[in-house]
């Protein structure tokens, strides 16, 4: 079996700060990490590899720094890593991102499972996985929390708000992982030594010329959606601190106010 994992490098949004004056993100000094759901996707691929005979290829579209995320994936146990990096890919929305990733997956070929994270913590759309599946014309199961195989089919438990669905899918299939799927491992010392060995050139880099792709469907120009403006969320709130000698007195004042406003 061949498994391909799509992995995005993202800024750690817990560390993101906002410049209140300009309303922009301060990215300087913010650590880059492997998108959390994608770590669950990779972990699942490695577990499947341990139980079945298969190889795990990780791919990422991004700037050259995204190699760091791929190195970490190799240290965790992936067999092969490919970075998709080209100016022509810059500014891609989910349509264009999925177009590039699908073209790379087609080039790799003869895959059985594509694993993605459900959602990236920066763009937050959860759209890239299903769009790749459509472009490859294969079935998908999103929000996967348990994955098994039986008689050449994938048996996947997917989360919904009202209870889980167990879905039986033909292969190849694209699955998107949520954090309930597993607990990602840490890289082993041996894995780290191999992945980060000086001079080791273990990541292939593909640009637009390496892919069979319609250049009108990628990058900023090929993206159907555009960011029109962005801003920092603002809230206007009464913001009154209730004072009093003790909790009891404050509680009484609060309930008085809520009652006056006919809220309770």
């Amino acid at each position, binding site marked *: 079996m061949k498994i391909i994992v799509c992995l995005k490098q993202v800024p750690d949004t817990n560390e993101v700060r906002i410049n209140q004056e300009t309303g922009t993100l301060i990215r300087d000094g913010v650590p880059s990490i492997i998108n959390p759901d994608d770590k669950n996707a990779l972990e699942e691929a490695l577990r499947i590899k341990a139980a079945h005979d298969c190889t795990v290829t990780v791919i990422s579209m991004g700037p050259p720094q995204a190699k760091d995320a791929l190195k970490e994936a190799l240290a965790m146990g992936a067999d092969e890593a490919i970075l998709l990096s080209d100016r022509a890919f810059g500014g891609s929305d989910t349509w264009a991102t999925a177009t590039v990733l699908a073209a790379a997956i087609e080039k790799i070929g003869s895959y059985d499972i594509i694993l993605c994270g459900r959602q990236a913590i920066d763009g937050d759309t959860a759209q890239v996985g299903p769009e790749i599946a459509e472009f490859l014309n294969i079935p998908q199961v999103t929000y996967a929390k348990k994955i098994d195989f039986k008689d050449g089919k994938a048996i996947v438990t997917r989360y*919904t708000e009202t209870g889980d669905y167990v879905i039986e899918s033909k292969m190849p299939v694209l699955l998107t992982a949520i954090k309930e799927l597993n607990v990602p491992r840490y890289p082993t010392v041996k894995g780290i030594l191999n992945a980060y060995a000086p001079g080791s050139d273990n990541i292939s880099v593909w640009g637009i010329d390496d892919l069979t792709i319609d250049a009108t469907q990628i990058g900023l120009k090929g993206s159907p959606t555009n960011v029109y403006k962005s801003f920092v969320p603002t809230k206007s709130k009464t913001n009154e601190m209730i004072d009093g000698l003790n909790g009891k007195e404050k509680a009484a004042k609060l309930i008085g106010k809520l009652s006056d406003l006919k809220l309770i």
Partner: protein
Amino acid sequence: MRRKVNQAINLSDYKDIWVIGEQREGKIHPVTTELIGEAKKLAEGTANQVMAVVAGHKIEEEVEKLLYYGVDKVYYINSPLLETFSTDGYSKAIAELILEKKPEIVLVGATSIGRDIGPRLAAKIGTGLVADCTKLEIDPSDGKLLQTRPAFGGNLMATIICPKNRPQMATVRPGVMKKAVHEANAVGIVETVSPTLKAEDIAARVVEMIQSGKKRVNLTDAKIIVSGGRGIKGPEGFDLIKALADKLGGEVGSSRACVDCGWIDHMHQVGQTGTTVRPVVYIACGISGAIQHLAGMSDSDYIIAINTDPEAPIFKVCDYGIVGDLKEVIPAMMEEVDKLNVFEL
């Protein structure tokens, strides 16, 4: 065959606003009426009609209920192959109808199911999709749809447009838009459509549905929510939270910290990766006010915060704040509420 975007289509060929109705096991999901409410708002003062699409089988009665929410038409895509949910079946059937009828705007609920078929639909049709919107407006200058959504974990809001492709598609976060009003009389009609679906089109099918078994909490419709955070110190802290919620006729919410500690079920979680709520009163007890929590409750009409730390960020977004120990403040609040009730008698 793969469709393409940016094919210089004639934008004026597209009209009307469509809502993709979600049904689960034959029952219309509440987000559908929220989408209808929003679609009606967007259609106001324009020639656009509001139409809903529901895919399924043997759910005629449920589909007709939508006519009481003031839609002009419901397309009911009826086929035995659509009786249970499948990404393949639903997205193929709905995409086919969109390609034929050419709506200008298509809204999908950003539930775990809507976020599964939404991108699949957009990719089949050849258009953009804006994720998890919390605000939609029509640009008065040229009629384009301004789609606003949180990104970077709620740290940033972005307004996204889809200028050259149609329909303009968005998934809309549940619990954010106002529900359409239920009218006494039905208007509009149901038009039943048969899809060109074949059994082989469905490559992934549901073989079992596991109901979560637990009592469902309805945070989305609650008028009052009392939420506990790590400051309640342990699972038994929710006894106090629940006592206050019960007294006020509200529901119990939680921060993710308590869910991650296993003190309460994920169903209660409010925030970016939980439920978005907008009750009349939201009472945050022992919750620091992380941006991911605020993302799910900052649209509440009144926010009350109780926290021992005067510097807790939650105080920056609250209407009324009490610096104090919740173990002291909550019982005192309950006593005061009891007093009120006595006066009312």
